């Protein structure tokens, strides 16, 4: 096992734990995005570039944006109700 693989595994373990520990949804979306990037590096390190390419875009860009947009909408609705 190479150094990069060990580092990537450690980053994924730490990242996954952090996503669970962060309680604020907005911050959680950003931490999850960083976690997704760590996973992408892990896939590259274990010679799965095809998975890594889709992982980069889906987990670090598309999913956090969808979460943030949904949160914005929810907060707007809450403000209107007040």
């Amino acid at each position, binding site marked *: 096992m190479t150094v990069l693989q060990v580092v990537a595994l450690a980053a994924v373990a730490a990242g996954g734990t952090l996503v669970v520990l962060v309680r604020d949804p907005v911050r959680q979306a950003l931490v999850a995005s960083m976690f997704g990037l760590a996973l992408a590096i892990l896939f590259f390190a274990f010679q799965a570039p*095809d998975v890594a390419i*889709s992982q980069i875009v889906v987990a670090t860009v*598309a999913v956090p*944006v969808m979460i943030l*947009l949904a949160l914005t909408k929810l907060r707007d609705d809450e403000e209107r109700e007040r």
Partner: protein
Amino acid sequence: MRARPRAVLAVLALAGLAALIAWAAGGLTPFGTPSGPANGVVRTLVHERHAANTVNGVTYDLRGLDTLGEELILFVAALGSAVLLRHGRGEQVDERADEEHESASARTADVLRAAGTALVGPLVVLGVYVVVHGHLSPGGGFQGGVILAAGLLLVYAAGQVVALERVEPTALVEVADATGALAYVLVAVGGLVFAAAALENFLPFGTTGNLLSAGTIPVLSVAVGVEVTGAVALILTELLDQTLLRGGE
């Protein structure tokens, strides 16, 4: 359920899961060993189908039916989100939200606007490259498709939502979504017409490493690329629309 029994249950379940994963991982062939069933798959794809990237050879040839299912799942997911999020007939554009949003786009930092605008072109070129070279190098329809859809997000990040609204990409992405899904199904039926079975690779295989090689693999890759671009862009457009331009009831 009280907190303590719940924690005990969670620890027990996770310990069991960890034991099962360790057991399964122990039975794997050592990392990088050139043996096992994967060897036969590589030989079939490289020598018979002339596909340099065996991952996409599996996705679009040997396991093409699974990909058809996955593609239709994405199609239905995009359709579902469009049905849920699209504003109803009575729901008008909230003028106030529109104005707020215009001023918000005016506030976008110049650096972000410049960088975002400058990156859209290269990103689209990269996406198209990844889609059409799926059978040669890592990438393919799904990967390239999400890169292309990220181009739309980049336009949004650069504060050009107003431009997006003027171009009205909804109709275009809907058509792309449906066309890609249909093209995949047509190639699948083509296998029935020109060869023995659905999704059989019926086009000439060409020379390994050429852009036009590996038969139907690059064709299916492009179909999936168009479909994924349309589906992800449709979901994002509907979310952006609902969040930024319609202010509720």
